[in-house]
């Protein structure tokens, strides 16, 4: 069959993009007239087809020898000016293949789930248009073979995120959250754009292959240029991937429909920053300083967001902060140079976090839109399938073996210790304790104990339809087995991604020998330790939220100060408002009312008035009719010309 289309399925890579785009166009232009089932079918089928092609591409890529696993296809020159060229070209390599599999695979499940979740919504076609457009943009982001084309996808996913967060735009909180997401992302993009400019000026190209090829030759490790480029890129990553200091948009983004939170704000888009850092690993390893910054920001975010997660009562917000925290782990891994581990956690996180969000969606769906965990409880018996899958997801994120999250998180901690230092490990380990605690707090508050639901809500509680449960089950399955992609350590994913990260993906356990032995000892003791940490967290949650449900309130009362800080998310939003947003608006008013209206216009009007007063005689000519002025100007012009010509 490949013969029909070209040499191999790799040639079909364009179709992976084309299908979701076509879906978006068809649904966008005629979705209003189509029935919802057709709209849903188009939305899902296009992503499903993209997934199938992605698998074929993946299989074809495997047939090549590891060092030849790079396929580029260029379509046309997008921008060319002088020596600057940016092509519309795609790149298939192990990293982009892993990403398209995750994006289309998890994306497909979430599309299917959405049919049930969004059933009956009046903007059904609009929703699927945006969702398909998002898939297209995300695929463009990961498949682009140069920085500038990647930037189209980068901003494209930002746009779709904006549109989907503000999907229920009649709610002011939703439209504000969308706007906030876009603007905060733009602050990151400020860094990204400058990075692209500096990359071009340094390497005279924005093509990935060429840049990464010439970087080691052209720059010395630790040079200022390498550090500036990578820090600017990382600024972009903190915006897109919701890290300190630009994470504040993500919790607000929970205003969007829950499947959107699962797809965009958990599984795919928010991890784009991680993808970008891994893609640019050649540049990052050239700047130890930048790597340290990445690790510190990642570790700090992991812990910081986890502490906020402790005190939140909105089920989706807890998950949002846990996403921020988990992405922090991925950056921590990248920062210590364990790029493959970062991607490994990205994959497992995509499985279990999509599962958790879709599970919470199932809960919210069942409760008619209720998101406050204080009004839930005891849902286990009403939503058995949701509960079981959710439990798997919670175990996975808490890091209990053999669930997926255990392997990836454990590996990050191991890398943080061996390649980084005790501080990085400590940040990660403490965050892991908190994660296990707040996730089980969420689980217990939602599914266990006595029902705290409103009467009329309780009467209507129902398990979700099959098209919502099936994706949950598949994701639950993946959350169980996903970890074996990266286990044991000298594993499939490592070997597969090795060409992209130049063998720098992992500590030296692959080689066997002495290193191998020592590391293995360390590895198993680390595994034991992180499992222990997770169990402690779970036990704490069990005591506080199952055994002694009165205790949390008492503790909160006792440590009111700390509790309020956590409940109010360290007042970061308020601080940003007070120090950046409001002063900007105030000074803008000042610029307008004083500089523009008073000073400049005052001057202009003053000149006009001055001339008026001083020219009593000339007033005869000031008829106020513009045509007279024009006439006199023309006459004046002609007189000047005549004078000039005669006297010169």
């Amino acid at each position, binding site marked *: 069959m490949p013969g029909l289309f070209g040499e191999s399925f790799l040639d079909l890579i364009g179709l992976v993009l084309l299908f979701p785009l076509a879906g978006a166009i068809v649904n966008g232009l005629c979705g209003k007239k189509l029935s919802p089932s057709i709209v849903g079918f188009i939305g899902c089928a296009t992503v499903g087809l993209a997934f199938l092609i992605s698998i074929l591409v993946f299989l074809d890529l495997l047939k090549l020898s590891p060092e030849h696993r790079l396929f580029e296809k260029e379509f*046309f020159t*997008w*921008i*060319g*000016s*002088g020596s*600057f060229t940016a092509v519309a070209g795609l790149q298939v390599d192990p990293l982009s293949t892993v990403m398209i599999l995750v994006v289309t695979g998890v994306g497909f499940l979430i599309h299917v789930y959405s049919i049930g979740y969004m059933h009956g919504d009046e903007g059904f076609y609009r929703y699927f248009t945006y969702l398909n457009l998002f898939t297209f943009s995300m695929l463009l982001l990961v498949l682009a073979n140069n920085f*500038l084309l990647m*930037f*189209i996808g*980068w*901003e*494209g996913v930002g*746009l779709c995120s*904006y549109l989907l967060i*503000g999907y229920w*735009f*009649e*709610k*002011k909180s939703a*439209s*504000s959250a*969308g*706007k906030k997401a*876009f*603007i905060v992302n*733009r*602050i990151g*993009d*400020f860094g990204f*754009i*400058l990075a692209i*400019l*500096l990359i*071009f*000026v340094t390497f005279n190209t924005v093509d990935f292959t060429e840049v990464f090829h010439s970087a080691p030759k052209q720059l010395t490790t630790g040079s200022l240029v390498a550090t500036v480029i990578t820090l600017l890129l990382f600024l972009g990553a903190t915006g897109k991937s919701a890290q300190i200091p630009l994470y504040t948009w993500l919790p607000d983004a929970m205003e969007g429909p829950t499947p959107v939170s699962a797809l965009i704000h958990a599984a795919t888009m928010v991890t784009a920053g991680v993808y970008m850092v891994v893609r640019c690993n050649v540049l990052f390893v050239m700047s130890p300083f930048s790597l340290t910054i990445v690790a510190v920001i990642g570790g700090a975010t992991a812990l910081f967001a986890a502490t906020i997660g402790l005190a939140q009562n909105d089920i989706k917000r807890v998950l949002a902060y846990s996403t921020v925290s988990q992405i922090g782990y991925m950056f921590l891994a990248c920062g210590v140079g364990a790029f493959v581990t970062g991607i490994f956690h990205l994959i497992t996180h995509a499985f279990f976090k999509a599962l958790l969000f879709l599970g919470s969606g199932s809960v919210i769906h069942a409760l008619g839109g209720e998101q406050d965990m204080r009004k839930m409880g005891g849902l286990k018996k009403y939503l058995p399938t949701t509960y079981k899958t959710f439990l798997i997801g919670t175990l996975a994120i808490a890091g209990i073996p053999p669930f997926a999250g255990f392997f990836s998180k454990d590996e990050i901690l191991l890398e943080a210790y061996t390649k980084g230092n005790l501080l990085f490990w400590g940040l990660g380990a403490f965050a892991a304790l908190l994660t296990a605690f707040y996730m089980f707090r969420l689980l217990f508050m939602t599914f266990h104990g006595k029902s705290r639901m409103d009467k009329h809500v309780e009467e209507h509680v129902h398990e979700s339809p099959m098209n919502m449960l099936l994706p949950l089950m598949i994701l639950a399955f993946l959350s169980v087995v996903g970890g074996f992609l990266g286990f044991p350590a000298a594993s499939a994913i490592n070997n597969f991604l090795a060409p992209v990260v130049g063998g720098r993906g992992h500590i030296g356990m692959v080689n066997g020998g002495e290193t191998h032995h020592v590391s293995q000892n360390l590895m198993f003791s680390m595994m034991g330790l992180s499992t222990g940490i997770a169990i402690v967290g779970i036990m704490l949650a069990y005591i506080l939220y199952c055994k002694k449900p009165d205790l949390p309130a008492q503790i909160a009362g006792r440590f009111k100060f700390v509790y309020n800080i956590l409940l109010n998310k360290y007042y970061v939003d308020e601080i940003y408002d007070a120090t950046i947003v409001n002063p*900007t*608006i105030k000074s*803008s*008013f000042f*610029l*307008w009312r004083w500089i*523009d209206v008073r000073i*400049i*216009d005052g001057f*202009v009007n003053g000149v*006009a008035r001055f001339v008026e007063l001083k020219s009593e005689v000339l007033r005869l000519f000031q008829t*106020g009719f*513009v*045509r007279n*002025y*024009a006439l006199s*100007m023309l006459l*004046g*012009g002609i007189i*000047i*010309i005549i004078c*000039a*010509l005669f006297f*010169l």
Partner: protein
Amino acid sequence: MSFPILTVATFLPLAGAIWILFIDKKKEEKIKQIALVTSIGAFIMSLPLYFNFNLTTHEFQFVENIPWIKEFGISYHVGIDGISLFLFLLTSFLTCIAILASWTIKERIKEYMISMLVLATGMLGVFISLDLFLFYVFWELMLIPMYLLIGVWGGPRRIYATIKFFIYTMAGSVLMLLAILAIHTLNYKETGEHTFDLLKMYDLDIPMGTQFWLFLAFFFAFAIKVPMFPFHTWLPDAHVEAPTAGSVILAGVLLKMGTYGFIRFSLPLFPYASHQFVPFIAWLALIGIIYGALVAMVQEDLKKLIAYSSVSHLGFVMLGIFVFNIQGLEGSILQMVNHGLSTGALFLLVGMIYERRHTRMIADFGGLAKQIPIFAVFFMIVTLSSIGLPGLNGFVGEFLVLLGTFKSNVLNATFATTGVVLSACYMLWMFQRVMFNKLSNKKNQNMADINSREWAIILPIVILIFWIGIYPKPIISRLDSSVNHLLTRVDEKYKTTLNKVTKDKEKLALKEDNVWK
């Protein structure tokens, strides 16, 4: 001589205006139709310029050169190169759109359409003139109908706005006229020939000190038009008072006269002074980008917001012109076209809701996306184009300008890039307050979605927005030769002057005195 296509395309609107002159003013439909047909005719006539354009030469194409007033050396010399091609096309395109958008004008339709058509000829003429005098004639010709459009068909404060516009532009025009005459004289002294031919002036070697003053004179004329900070305060008033079509033309074409003037006249005629003024202009441009964006953010009137956003966008254009490299200049030219399309479309869209609600105050709206969803889609696309979303037109120009700036001055580029953040702030905040949230104002609850005429107005622009964003190559490739040639010439002449300056500074100082005696 071949078919005088430039003349035909330029004067077709004027011919339409004369035709309308002889038609009874009560036949309103017929007047409108004539105006539309002649403007479309002019647009169709200008299309061969695009398709038959020779990409390989920097020479002017479709040239016509006829002596006009021989005694003074004034000739009807017109032609087009890559730099003016797209501004010419943009003008003839936006004229059709503007006339179609004027269908709802109720008063003095005959006079209105005549003004529009005369305006079109004036603007087209400016972009093709290769004779300084001819250029000045067209420059003035287009101003008069613009005054009338604002002063007669404008809003309540139209007289104030017109006079302000008039004072500003006249101040610039007079200085420019003086400068033109001075160049003419300089040329006469050097060559003994009376001529206003621009191409001959390009060869002129103007002494350093003289360049300074002449540059400054042109600078005022053009900077007011652009408008650069702090010469911009006529713009918000003119926009607010102007009828929709007036705003479209004003933002879409008239502002480009200033930036075009810098490229066509200031750079090649005064390369040395241009280089000397770089820090000054770059800072004004940067202030314009940031100041315009900040002030736009707090506007309560939609048209004022868009007007201030123009100050910000044109700051990018100015920045790109004065970095003297290919990406900067090509980005600037592209950005001129992009701004014409995006901002033109924004004014059209605001005009549409103004016609329905007779208000432009942001506070009067909210939740319109529910009431008029198709309008909302168009508004969203144009808004995104204006904030430079990659994949749409605005990004390509903005990025090239930033790249060109970065190559010459990293700090300037960094400041300019903040414009990317700020534009998202003011545009999306505006969009939210107008289109999103609850549809609470009762008066908005029976607004009609866009009609077929409005589709015809906005759809072509949106198609261009996508086209330029996705495949700008046909445009950029047509710019290449001319821009390269211009930059080479400016560079050579700059170096010549620079050498002279260093060689005999004292002699030059003496010479300078003589010129003014």
